[in-house]
């Protein structure tokens, strides 16, 4: 194998799969998908340093689950090539997170108590760790696979924990060195603007951010109240961004109040990012809206957040169902008012974060669902009440939600003295002359690249999407930063970027059998009395213990968590987490298929109790146990670490059985004898070997059987029928000793199941790919069972080894040598003769109907310039399907023409 690996004329494509085969003998085009290993083979020295800090452990496939391996690993000790590989798959959480934060990574690090590393890892993606950890609407949790066990992980709260525990002591960052001369202007210091600034400054650009307000942070600062996001948390994160070298100009509106215009920015900077958010409130448009006492939530919250004095009455109605409405209501409550929320749809349709709605309800806020104001009533210029009408849900509108329609004469009044309107916001685009707006009043920008139609101007966040959420704004900022970088470097904005991540529903994650349920941890909350009267933060965060326990629930869906620990350890700089899969196109003359067999899975025969005791092993597992590189260093020990006193070996598990595979697997009698011999020799244990027939044909095998008999193995002629796991862990095997004619049992410490060989589960796909037939047992069909054992019915494709049928290593080698010889024979000729059984078209009869073109399974027929069918003789395999389809008898398969068949029919009937 080593020699094959090193031979200059042999190219090994490991971690690869053939995805397409076209052409014909001598001229195959094979397309191979090379899976990324994330490790550069030319650099990796195989030193193994990288595995040391990898926090992810999974069952080792090679050790058939007997040991664990890390996410970065060497498939097995003798692997060719000897390099390492990273097992990385998509994970639902990271895929669903709009900013694609490596969720599993920071969770794994928290689980190991490496909190500062967890914080640093999140900061590689976003600066808003403590912020998102508090206010994110966490769509990731909806998809977290752990929900299939009991409940999703508290992903968001863990992010907050990483921040809370590590940020206060983390050293402030050093300013980033400028790499590029270009400067970028950003308008708006909300999460979109600052995220773009954060990424751009780290790439080495100069960044200036303009902000109209006296504080930075956008809606995070002036929308979300302090009881949800304390001011110091946000400020610290903005300071972190500033410390990297981002310049923030407060009190500098663009395009109004004397500030610079967009034109100015386009002139003075090399690129502009507009992230102005959506701050203009939509109006109610009902009579009485101009009465004093009617406020808008954004104004109300901004004033509160900026510490200005706000006056509201005793009875407050909040109109709307979004986050802003809930925040306005909860803030009003904290100012001592009685609050009712009026929303025109039902609770299920509320766009606000459900947990926020629950919290509002807990705090004592009343809800009027399916109602909307029709007028606001006043007396002497003072508000007295609000008249509402009931609504019912009609047909769905374009947002997919059912449209509310008023119920006639269902008006009612609410006595209120303050109304806070919160029915949506739009961006204020008036100052930004020159940009394009959509019909919705939002900025026009490409949803993938964030480019606007104006050269060098990009836009993102609420200004583009309308009011959305912080993490979407972060994602938009990050996309814009990448686009601006590409724009400034003259690169294509799209090439090689991934805009569509896999859908969580399409990500397969195997949930380990026997996983124990563990309740999801919830954060403690401030006592209710304090909640209602102060703006102190409501949720109190996890304790270290809670966070560790919560982190331990993660299923490591992606295996590699992208924590980057390995990258830091690899001195050869061989690790590249950004590798993508590649396609290799090969031109080959012949193909040898040698995909091997699958080991029978004994859970399909539950009478053998496989999986219900660690001391019931398959033959393959026993092989690993006895190998020097195995989990016990080659010693035969039970799972309890003891030398077994009695061992039973059962033949024909999954073979010679109508309930599993009918065929005899041919190698298991031999390997079972080998196992019996090993057990006797290494442990001296009593061995009971249950067999139906002993198949030791051929050279040397019967002699070996004799020797094992003399070793003292107790042979029982009778099928080992079932294995029971006794309460004390001992295993009871039952059978009939058919020589005695008596039911017998044996109580042992270890059972080895002589599992047989079967076709691989993907054999049908492989067969289709290479045009192979399969025999009833599922293995690939050879062209003739006696005379052509390595050829297949597809010329130029040969079989080698157990993919064709069970056989041992010597026979596999012989078979493979034969396949190689056949392939060489073809190659040395240099030309191929194809079977003369091909079809040809009698042009004069062909009407050009094209039926044959559709019928041919090989696309061998096409209509030529004259509208007549034409057969490509190299592609045609001579099946004759076209002839049967042709209504004009114009196409004739040589040797199977209509006349020849008719002659045969008449012949046999005579």
């Amino acid at each position: 194998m080593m020699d094959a690996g090193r031979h200059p004329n042999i190219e090994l494509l490991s971690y690869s799969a053939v995805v397409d085969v076209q052409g014909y003998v001598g001229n195959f085009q094979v397309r191979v998908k090379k899976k990324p290993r994330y490790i550069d083979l030319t650099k990796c020295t195989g030193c193994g340093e990288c595995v040391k800090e990898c926090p992810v452990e999974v069952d080792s496939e090679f050790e058939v689950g007997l040991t664990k391996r890390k996410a970065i690993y060497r498939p097995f000790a003798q692997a060719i090539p000897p390099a390492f590989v990273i097992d990385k798959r998509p994970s639902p959480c990271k895929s669903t997170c709009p900013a694609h934060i490596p969720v599993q990574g920071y969770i794994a690090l928290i689980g190991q108590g490496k909190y500062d590393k967890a914080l640093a890892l999140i900061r590689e993606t976003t600066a808003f760790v403590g912020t998102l950890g508090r206010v994110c609407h966490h769509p990731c949790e909806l998809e977290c696979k752990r929900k299939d066990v009991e409940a999703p992980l508290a992903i968001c709260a863990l992010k907050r924990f990483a921040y809370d525990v590590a940020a206060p002591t983390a050293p402030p960052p050093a300013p980033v060195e400028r790499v590029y001369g270009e400067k970028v202007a950003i308008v708006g210091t909300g999460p979109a603007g600052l995220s773009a600034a954060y990424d751009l400054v780290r790439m080495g650009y100069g960044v200036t951010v303009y902000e109209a307000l006296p504080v930075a942070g956008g809606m995070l600062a002036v929308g979300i109240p302090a009881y949800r996001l304390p001011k110091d948390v946000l400020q610290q994160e903005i300071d972190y961004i500033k410390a990297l070298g981002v310049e923030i100009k407060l009190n500098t509106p663009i395009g109004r109040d004397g500030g610079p215009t967009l034109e100015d920015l386009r002139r003075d900077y090399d690129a502009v990012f507009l992230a102005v958010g959506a701050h203009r409130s939509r109006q109610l448009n009902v009579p009485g809206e101009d009465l004093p006492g009617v406020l808008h939530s954004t104004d109300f919250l901004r004033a509160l957040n900026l510490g200005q004095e706000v006056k509201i009455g005793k009875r407050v109605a909040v109109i709307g169902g979004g986050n802003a409405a809930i925040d306005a209501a909860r803030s009003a409550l904290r100012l001592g008012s009685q609050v009712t929320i009026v929303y025109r749809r039902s609770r299920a349709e509320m766009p606000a974060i459900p947990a926020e709605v629950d919290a509002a309800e807990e705090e004592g806020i009343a809800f009027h669902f399916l109602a909307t104001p029709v007028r606001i009533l006043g007396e002497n210029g003072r508000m007295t009440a609000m008249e509402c009408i009931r609504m019912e849900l009609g047909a769905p509108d374009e947002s997919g939600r059912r449209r509310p329609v008023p119920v006639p004469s269902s008006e009612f009044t609410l006595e209120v003295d303050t109304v806070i309107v919160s029915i949506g916001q739009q961006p204020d685009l008036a100052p930004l002359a020159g940009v394009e707006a959509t019909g919705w009043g939002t900025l026009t920008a490409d949803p993938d690249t964030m480019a606007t139609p104006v050269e060098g101007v990009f836009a993102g966040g609420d200004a583009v999407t309308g009011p959305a959420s912080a993490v979407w704004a972060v994602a938009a900022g990050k996309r814009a930063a990448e686009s601006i970088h590409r724009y400034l470097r003259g690169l294509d904005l799209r090439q090689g970027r991934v805009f569509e991540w896999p859908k969580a529903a399409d990500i397969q994650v195997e949930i380990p059998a026997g996983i124990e349920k563990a309740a999801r941890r919830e954060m403690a909350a401030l006592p209710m009395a304090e909640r209602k009267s102060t703006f102190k933060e409501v949720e109190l965060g996890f304790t270290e213990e809670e966070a560790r326990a919560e982190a331990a629930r993660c299923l490591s869906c992606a295996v590699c968590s992208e924590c980057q620990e390995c990258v830091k350890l690899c001195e050869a700089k061989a690790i590249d987490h950004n590798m993508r899969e590649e396609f290799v196109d090969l031109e080959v003359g012949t193909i040898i298929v040698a995909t091997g067999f699958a080991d029978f899975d004994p859970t399909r025969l539950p009478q053998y109790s496989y999986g219900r005791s660690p001391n019931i092993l398959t033959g393959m597992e026993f092989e690993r146990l006895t190998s020097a590189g195995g989990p016990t260093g080659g010693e035969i020990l039970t799972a309890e670490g003891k030398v077994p006193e009695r061992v039973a070996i059962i033949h024909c598990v999954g073979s010679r059985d109508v309930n599993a595979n009918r065929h005899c697997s041919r190698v298991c009698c031999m390997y079972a004898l080998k196992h019996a011999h090993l057990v006797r020799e290494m442990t001296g244990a009593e061995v009971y070997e249950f067999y139906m027939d002993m198949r030791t044909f051929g050279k040397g095998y019967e002699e070996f059987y004799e020797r094992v008999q003399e070793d003292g193995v107790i042979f029982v002629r009778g099928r080992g029928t079932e294995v029971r796991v006794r309460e004390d862990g001992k295993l009871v095997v039952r059978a009939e000793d058919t020589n005695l004619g008596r039911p017998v049992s044996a109580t042992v410490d270890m059972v080895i199941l002589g599992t047989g060989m079967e076709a691989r589960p993907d054999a049908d796909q492989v067969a289709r790919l290479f045009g192979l037939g399969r025999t009833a047992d599922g293995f690939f069909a050879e062209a003739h069972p006696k005379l052509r054992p390595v050829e297949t019915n597809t010329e130029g494709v040969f079989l080698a080894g157990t993919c064709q049928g069970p056989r041992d290593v010597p026979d596999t080698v012989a078979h493979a040598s034969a396949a190689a010889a056949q392939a060489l024979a073809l190659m040395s000729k240099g030309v191929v003769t194809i079977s003369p059984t091909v079809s040809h078209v009698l042009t004069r009869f062909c009407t050009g109907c094209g039926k044959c073109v559709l019928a041919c399974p090989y696309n061998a027929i096409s209509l030529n310039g004259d509208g007549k069918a034409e057969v490509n003789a190299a592609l045609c395999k001579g099946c004759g399907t076209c002839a049967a389809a042709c209504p004009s008898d114009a196409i004739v398969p040589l040797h199977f023409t209509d006349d020849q068949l008719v002659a045969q029919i008449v012949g046999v009937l005579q």
Partner: protein
Amino acid sequence: MSGDGFEPRIVAFLCNWCSYAGADTAGVSRLELPPNILPVRVMCSGRVSAEMVLKALLSGADGVLVLGCHIGDCHYGSGNHRTVKRIPLLRRLMTYMGIEPDRLRLDWVSGAEAGHFAKITTEFVEAVRALGPLSLPLREDLDTG
């Protein structure tokens, strides 16, 4: 069996890769096969056109059996998909012509299914035996070519 000693004559179209091989295996395994089966080898069951089936019936066959590879195992990938669509149409056509549709049967036999081959052929011979000889008064007239 039935006392009149009627021995049906069955034309069996066997695809080269599966059914023909199955018949071969059946022979090698010394299975008992009905002598009434008159095999005609084609490369693929997809080759069996309506014309060939009718030709066989008009030339004196009492039944026609078309055997191919199991769906998914066709040596040519999808030749037998065509056959699956064609045979029911043909059976309808036969009804129209006054021939019992059960005189035509399509089935799948892989190269390894010797027993299956023996079973299908035996069953079909018995089914056609029960239908009796195919009497086609118009046989000569219809047989124009």
